């Protein structure tokens, strides 16, 4: 009894902080999502109505929500594999016995991660500029027509993906480098003696040994990518023609631009459910592939 009481006393400060800054706001947000809290309610609380599931029904019937969801899934489905693939490729290159100046390249490739999104996004806007940008200058050197990277609805999301992958792949790369160093070299020696080529070694030794790391990186990257916000906010403001509106951006606009806090909370909880489902799915997939072995 006293032992368990002592335990509670020790965790009480942490619990209080979690309760105050996590549980309480989340509960308040959930309550808000069942109300029509907006500008009018801010002026006078008598203008607040209980809305039940109306906000959820409204959001689910909103074409822009589905468009935002589509945009977000596009970003996740293309961006996550691209980001992980690039991280892994760079990590393998850095681990190669042929690589020179490893610390330099490790730092250089990691550098974008520690920069601020807003500052770098401004620079990338120059790179993407339709008339004076570096990317279009290269296209012109190749004899190709210029692309309106951020102004064309078809190209805006690929541009955002390009930027995000460049910005974020370094973090995963460092994790992969650490995981690669943990693979015993004897496995590769044995494989070479059995006559396995480089590709076979990669498929049958490197990938399986990286399994848990891949899962971790996959989950972290995916949850991060679902929360796409800063890039479109700084670079395109959701445009052109709503082609870069993400679910989180939609929530921001509803909540803080138009002050429909009830509806914005509903969007937030829908995104939360979506992320839970996606993460669970990924874990389930990972477990299924592990079990037969």
């Amino acid at each position: 009894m006293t032992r368990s009481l002592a335990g509670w006393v020790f965790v009480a400060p942490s619990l209080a902080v979690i309760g105050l800054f996590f549980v309480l706001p989340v509960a308040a947000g959930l309550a808000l999502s069942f109300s029509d809290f907006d500008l009018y309610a801010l002026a006078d609380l008598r203008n607040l109505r209980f809305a039940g599931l109306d906000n959820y029904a409204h959001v689910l019937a909103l074409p822009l929500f589905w468009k935002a969801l589509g945009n977000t899934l596009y970003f996740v489905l293309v961006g996550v594999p691209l980001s992980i693939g690039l991280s892994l490729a760079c990590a393998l290159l850095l681990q190669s016995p042929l690589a020179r100046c490893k610390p330099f390249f490790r730092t250089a490739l990691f550098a974008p991660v520690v920069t601020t999104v807003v500052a770098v996004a401004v620079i990338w806007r120059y790179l993407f500029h339709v008339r004076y940008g570096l990317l279009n200058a290269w296209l012109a050197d190749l004899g190709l027509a210029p692309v309106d990277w951020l102004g064309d609805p078809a190209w805006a999301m690929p541009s955002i993906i390009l930027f995000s992958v460049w910005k974020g792949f370094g973090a995963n790369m460092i994790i992969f480098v650490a995981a690669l160093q943990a693979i015993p070299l004897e496995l590769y020696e044995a494989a070479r003696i059995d006559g396995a080529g480089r590709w076979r070694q990669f498929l049958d030794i490197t990938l399986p040994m990286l399994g848990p790391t891949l899962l971790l990186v996959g989950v972290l990257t995916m949850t991060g990518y679902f929360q796409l916000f800063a890039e479109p906010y700084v670079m395109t403001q959701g445009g052109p023609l709503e082609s870069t509106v993400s679910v989180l951006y939609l929530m921001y606009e509803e909540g803080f631009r138009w002050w429909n806090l009830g509806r914005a909370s509903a969007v937030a909880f829908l995104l939360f459910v979506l992320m839970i489902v996606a993460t669970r799915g990924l874990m389930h997939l990972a477990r299924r592939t592990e079990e037969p072995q």
Partner: protein
Amino acid sequence: MLPRRRAFVTSAACAALGLAGCGRGGAGAPLRFWAMGREGEVLETLLAPLLREQPALRVRVEKLPWSAAHEKLLTAFAGDATPDIAQLGNTWIAELAALGALQPLDAGAMGLDAADHFDGIWRTNQAGGRLLGVPWYIDTRVMFYRRDLFERAGVATVPGDWPGLVQALDALQRSGVAHPLLLPLNEAEPLLALALQQEEPLLRDNGRYGNFRSAGFQRTLVFYIERFQRGHAPFLTNNQIANLWQEFGRGSFAAFISGPWNIGELDRRLPADLQGRWSTAPLPGPVPGSRHGASTAGGSSLVVFQRSRRRQEALQVLAFLGRPQTQLHFHALTGNLPPRRSTWALAPLAGERRAAAFLQQLELAKPTPAVPEWERILQEMQLQAARAQRYGTPVAEAAATLDARVDGFLTKRRWMLDRGAAA
């Protein structure tokens, strides 16, 4: 994880303390005055004579960026931290009035008179029959055009009606300007100005429903989209034009629709040999044979917040900023156009040729509907127009979509109005 959480706790605590520190001061504290952009920068200079007259009065100017001003004002209201005086874009007045945040003003007590102001602008400062702000500077949209390019195409000046404008644009195209009129696809103001020229209001039933299916708005939308279809306007957004003034100087286009600040910008940025080769004209109107059409009634107003404890002093500041001499000084510092006719009658404004188009246009300036949801409606209007332009949606269909969305935004307003009527 742990350090991050600790940082979060600390910042939350600071925010709480900061809010307490922001509370309205007692008698000795200076008046808090929120101003945006360039106006915020010159405000201290502008107020210097008043502070010399009244040494007891102290004013603290707090500058906000335009891009964050709207959010900050609403957050300040929610957090009970509104300033005493603020500069406000006049389309936001309805919104803050709906919150009950603004103090009704007595024009006469400040030496102001509605007849001395332009009607369209004055009306944007009223809500529910009460004056809630005083115009500080005004903004409307006119046509900036290259006189030399128009003359080369055989057009003496900007025509007064739409059919004339179309002919002029055709002539300009023949004379070698491929896309003579710039209408950036992500900028709502030009389309809004053209839409306000129609007889029908943009919202109907006291702002209960959208009125974009009206014949008038559809005519505007057809006219707007046709400019792109016939190549009169280039398919460009703001972001794709690196330097508006440079491209205008180069003759990439011969005309664009913009506001008064561009007089100063063009004076400063165009090389000497191009000065005198551009001018301004009121917007052409939709009715054939008209001299010119209506335009927007924009600009900034000054408001006093209801929660201010120092209203008397705040009103003194407003009265000072409303004096014609102060407004002339303000114009010299910023290029902003003054709201009072008695200021316009003074030199050097009275003789300014390029400001004259604005003076003419202001007589026909029309306010936008005074509903808190207007900002959002405007953005939706531009979005639907850009979609119709890009995907070739029939105009009637685009107008119906727009009306449906706008009716959605106004749902709560309808409920409020109906309840108010029942009570």
